[in-house]
């Protein structure tokens, strides 16, 4: 602590004193709570089908309407999906799991309680990437509440409409330990979780449609401290962009509070990305009406549901349903195929690209393309030509044809530029043999140095000014010269070779 601030100013909490010292000594501590709608056919505790845009209140029954005398029965597949999530996150699967009632009154909850889990969740502990998992439990989703504003057609301003189609949809709630340290890290990690869940096939994981929802617990503490500061819970961040912006805005809000010597109040906050904050930043953060404290939920074991016994058969079924997960796939690409970390991650997280990459790699093209070159062509040139998110397997470009093309380029029998022209042709028309396209279009690399050398000499003569500047050391001036050679050769020349010849002929 520096002398300047230690004695001066109002006495404040340790955190703010430390912060005002260095200006940036506060460290954000972030944990996430993710709700995932499970892709079952029916609801968590009744046989009503899940709703995808059906007319309101057409997927209800006495159980999900909370009518007296109705009894819930847990959905076997929801439990199965929960176990798969637990296995994917390295959690401990509980031998026995208990449902609890979480009691509170809100119109989207017809029973006056949500069936959730409390002290015996389905899965405990675990880890995904650098983030530890606290727990995974099952619960039921609430109904959808539509607030009718003053302009609404119903009774003026004080009425809401309830649609119970969503009520009772199975949810897995995944709670992390507070291991994240920045908004960017939080959204990056959430992408990894989403890719993992998508690969498992347990959810649509669509944030815009609400099948993946994320709340963040955020606090600040002096960097290096082991203690946690007072946290707030930030809700309503329904896209990766909003998650970053929301967390960033809340960190700034807390930083201002602490640096001005005040104390952060533990509360639930709502992030509204459509407004601007008081400080002028994007997205206002407002306090939700104070909800019950945890003990006010009066959790108690759901008397209408028996404990779920997770036996070996259920664990085995969950294990058998698991495919290779993105993190494992990325690791395999790095270890076995020596791909760069970025390429491995990209192909692993976009499984359609990864599948296509593996098909191309297994095609045994001759000459054989290096795995990294293949990865670059698929994630770069091919993905760009197909457009956002399109599966290359559904395109006209057959994986063996792409492998053959990349092999030709890698062997320098076709220049990169000419290879792109061949790829254009494959994207437009398909075809099995890139070598035939190369032949038919006269795109083969210029073989002899003499032939290319003459073209380079002509280009230098035609661009004498540029040549002079290159000779004087301005490497950027080489552009027009290389461009002229490429035009003359219709892109068949190898760019590196052209540059080498330009330098050679200029004597540098």
């Amino acid at each position, binding site marked *: 602590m520096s002398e300047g601030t230690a004695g001066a100013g109002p006495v404040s909490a340790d955190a703010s004193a430390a912060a005002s010292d260095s200006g940036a000594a506060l460290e954000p501590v972030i944990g996430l709570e993710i709700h995932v709608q499970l892709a*079952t056919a*029916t609801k968590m505790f009744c046989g009503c089908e899940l709703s995808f845009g059906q007319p309101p209140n057409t997927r209800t029954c006495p159980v999900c*309407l909370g009518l007296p005398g109705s009894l819930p029965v847990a*959905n076997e597949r929801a439990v199965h999906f929960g176990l798969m999530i637990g296995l994917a996150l390295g959690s401990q699967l509980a031998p026995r799991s*208990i449902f609890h009632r979480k009691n509170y009154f809100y119109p989207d909850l017809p029973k006056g309680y949500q069936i959730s889990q409390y002290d015996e969740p389905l899965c405990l502990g675990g880890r995904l990437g650098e983030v530890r998992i606290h727990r995974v439990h099952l619960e039921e989703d609430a109904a959808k509440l539509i607030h009718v504003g003053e302009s609404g057609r119903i*009774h003026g301003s004080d*009425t809401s*409409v309830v649609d*119970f189609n969503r009520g009772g949809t199975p949810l897995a709630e995944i709670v992390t330990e507070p291991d994240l340290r920045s908004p960017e890290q939080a959204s990056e990690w959430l992408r990894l979780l989403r890719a993992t869940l998508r690969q498992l096939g347990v959810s649509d994981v669509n944030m815009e449609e609400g099948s993946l929802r994320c709340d963040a617990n955020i606090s600040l503490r002096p960097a290096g401290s082991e203690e946690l500061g007072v946290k707030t819970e930030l809700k309503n961040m329904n896209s990766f962009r909003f998650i970053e912006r929301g967390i960033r805005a809340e960190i700034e809000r807390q930083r201002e509070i602490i640096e001005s010597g005040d104390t952060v109040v533990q509360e639930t906050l709502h992030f509204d990305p459509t407004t601007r904050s008081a400080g002028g930043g994007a997205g206002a953060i407002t306090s939700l009406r104070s909800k019950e404290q945890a003990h006010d939920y009066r959790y108690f*074991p759901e008397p209408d549901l028996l404990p779920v016994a997770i036996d070996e058969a259920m664990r085995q079924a969950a294990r058998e349903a698991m495919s290779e997960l993105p993190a494992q796939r990325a690791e395999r690409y790095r270890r076995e195929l020596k791909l760069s970390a970025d390429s491995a991650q990209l192909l692993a997280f976009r499984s359609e690209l990864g599948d296509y990459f593996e098909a191309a790699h297994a095609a045994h093209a001759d000459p054989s393309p290096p795995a990294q070159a293949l990865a670059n062509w698929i994630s770069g040139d091919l993905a760009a030509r197909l457009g956002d998110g399109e599966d290359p397997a559904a395109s006209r470009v057959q994986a063996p044809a792409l492998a053959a093309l990349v092999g030709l380029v890698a062997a320098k029998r076709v220049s990169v530029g000419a290879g792109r022209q061949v790829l254009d042709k494959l994207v437009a028309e398909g075809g099995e043999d890139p070598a035939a396209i190369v032949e038919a279009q006269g795109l083969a690399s210029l073989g002899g140095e003499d032939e290319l050398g003459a073209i380079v000499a002509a280009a230098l003569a035609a661009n004498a000014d540029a040549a002079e500047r290159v000779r004087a050391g301005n490497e950027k001036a080489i552009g027009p010269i290389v461009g002229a050679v490429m035009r003359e050769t219709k892109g068949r020349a190898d760019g590196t070779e052209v540059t080498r010849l330009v330098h050679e002929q200029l004597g540098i």
Partner: protein
Amino acid sequence: MIERDEVLHVARLARLALSDEEIEPMARELSAVLDHVAKIGELSLDDVAPTLHVVEVTGALRPDEPRPSLPREVAFEQAPEVGDEGFLVPSPQA
């Protein structure tokens, strides 16, 4: 004896309106219930698992197979107030 504030807090959680005359008797009755249950604490129960259910049955799960939902007009019959497509409730935001 539990405090008056605690009675009011629990009443609020349960959405019960208590008149002034009801608060003191309620505190007395709730305290009696709690005292009764607290009796159990005098026993040595370290090795006894909580009895969640009187029968030790597990594994009653339901196959993920759809069953017919209620026709909307039937569902609406139970509601005090409905609109064209939904149940109407006092707005919690009002």
